[in-house]
């Protein structure tokens, strides 16, 4: 089973000829175990490291205010804390994603698999049409994701104020802040998470289980975010990003799609916050209508992506 490498034309090798192999490859150990151990190891470093850094940053910013009496009411207190801590948390997100997610992943690939990290993670060019179709598909899926999220939120009766507090981290109120939020919420995860999930875990699993790695890593991507309400949409997005990676043999379409999705969230929240649309408001009903139009468009984009990514079969296979 582990000798197959469907995505790379049947060759099980991790490195191009002449590149030194890593310790895991030389030992001929299980690639599935490497992917699992890598995902869990990086996960532990990232989540515990991030929790520690964010706790320190929040305490340093708020001091005793975080534990002060809630004389103004619970929500007002939470809003004050969220506003005070949003910038340090954003900085922590950028630093910890690069330091505790990206660096350990690159180190693991270099040590366990190959010195040619760039080839391993498939950081290579793809066609402009693949990039454009990946971006279009994700843009069309955006209203669908909003409708699904709102459905769960309404079913759980989550107070509106609590949702707004939760969105503080992703919401910018000016152009400068918007650029910073895009860096923290759209650019950084598109690089770090794509290299861990698609570049390492999916790439390693692909060598043993082929296309099934798209499904496995897509679900793991949803679970990894630890957002039960977003599990369905995040797993769906993970599947689509994984498919882009699998079909195009390149990390770039997935990165572009991931960036687009997060960018749309940030820009949408910015528009709502700054009231840029004026009196024009999209109701849940309007979003549902939009989603019902956007879903077939997303499916069409995915189909076209599949068409442009399918390589013509030569007689030799």
């Amino acid at each position: 089973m582990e000798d197959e490498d469907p995505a790379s034309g049947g060759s099980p090798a991790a490195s191009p000829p002449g590149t030194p192999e890593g310790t895991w490859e030389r030992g001929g150990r299980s690639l599935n175990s490497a992917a699992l151990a890598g995902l869990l190891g990086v996960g532990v470093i990232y989540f515990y490291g991030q929790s520690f850094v964010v706790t320190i940053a929040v305490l340093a910013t708020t001091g005793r205010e975080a534990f002060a009496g809630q004389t103004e009411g619970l929500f007002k207190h939470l809003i004050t804390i969220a506003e005070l801590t949003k910038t340090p948390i954003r900085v922590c997100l950028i630093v910890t994603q690069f330091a505790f997610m990206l660096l350990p992943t690159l180190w693991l690939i270099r040590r366990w698999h190959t010195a040619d990290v760039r080839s391993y993670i498939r950081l290579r060019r793809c066609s402009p049409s693949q990039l454009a179709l990946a971006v279009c598909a994700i843009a069309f899926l955006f209203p669908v994701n909003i409708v699904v999220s709102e459905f769960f939120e309404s079913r759980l009766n989550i107070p509106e104020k609590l949702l707004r507090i939760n969105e503080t981290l992703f919401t910018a109120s000016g152009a400068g802040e918007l650029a910073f939020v895009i860096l923290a919420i759209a650019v950084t995860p598109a690089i770090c998470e794509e290299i861990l999930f698609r570049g390492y875990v999916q790439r390693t699993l692909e060598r043993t289980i082929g296309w099934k790695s798209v499904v496995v890593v897509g679900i793991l991507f949803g679970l990894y975010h630890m957002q039960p309400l977003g599990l369905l949409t995040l797993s769906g997005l993970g599947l689509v990003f994984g498919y882009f990676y699998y079909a195009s043999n390149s990390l770039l379409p997935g990165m572009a799609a991931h960036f687009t999705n997060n960018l749309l969230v940030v820009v949408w929240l910015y528009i709502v916050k700054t009231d840029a649309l004026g009196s024009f408001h999209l109701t849940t009903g309007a979003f549902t209508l939009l989603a019902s139009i956007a879903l077939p468009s997303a499916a069409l984009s995915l189909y076209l992506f599949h068409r442009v990514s399918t390589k013509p079969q030569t007689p030799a296979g």
Partner: protein
Amino acid sequence: MALAATGSGGAFAIVLMFLAAMCLGAFLFIRWALAFTVIACEDHGVLESFKRSWGLVSNRWWRVFGILLLMGLLVNFAIFLLTAPFTFIAMWGFYREYFSALSSAGTGQPDPTLMGKAMASMGPAVGLSMALNMMLSTLTKPVYMTVLYFDLCARKKEADAAYRSLPSEHQGDQPFRSLPEGRE
């Protein structure tokens, strides 16, 4: 003033005693961590297995501590990822009631019965979710404890004896070897 000083001194002493007890507890926990594995692998009695675990861990306390800490973090993280959706589904009713209570608190007219309803909504599904969690951790721990046991035996040059003490059906075709001299 004197009373206040005595009070703060007493509190300080209690904190110190608590910390000392924590350290002692951690020390003994690691020293005796392999007792159950020894019972299973070597078929010793209870007291003897604790003595054996003490001996295996001697001079390697920090190593065992590090491995157990790391494995604990890794296994808990994996179990959390796997069981989170089940827990969320099991807790759905609770969350719904909880958020309703929170919404009504925001309006200034909290409904005192809502928290009771929230607690009541935690039905058998929560128990099933906890059982799944416990089952996974109970299944995983013996695996890495057994690997750790054989690792420590090999480092003490006792792996062959430990391996031979296993029931014959649990021994493979190839003999198990302790680490060669000079290798740690």
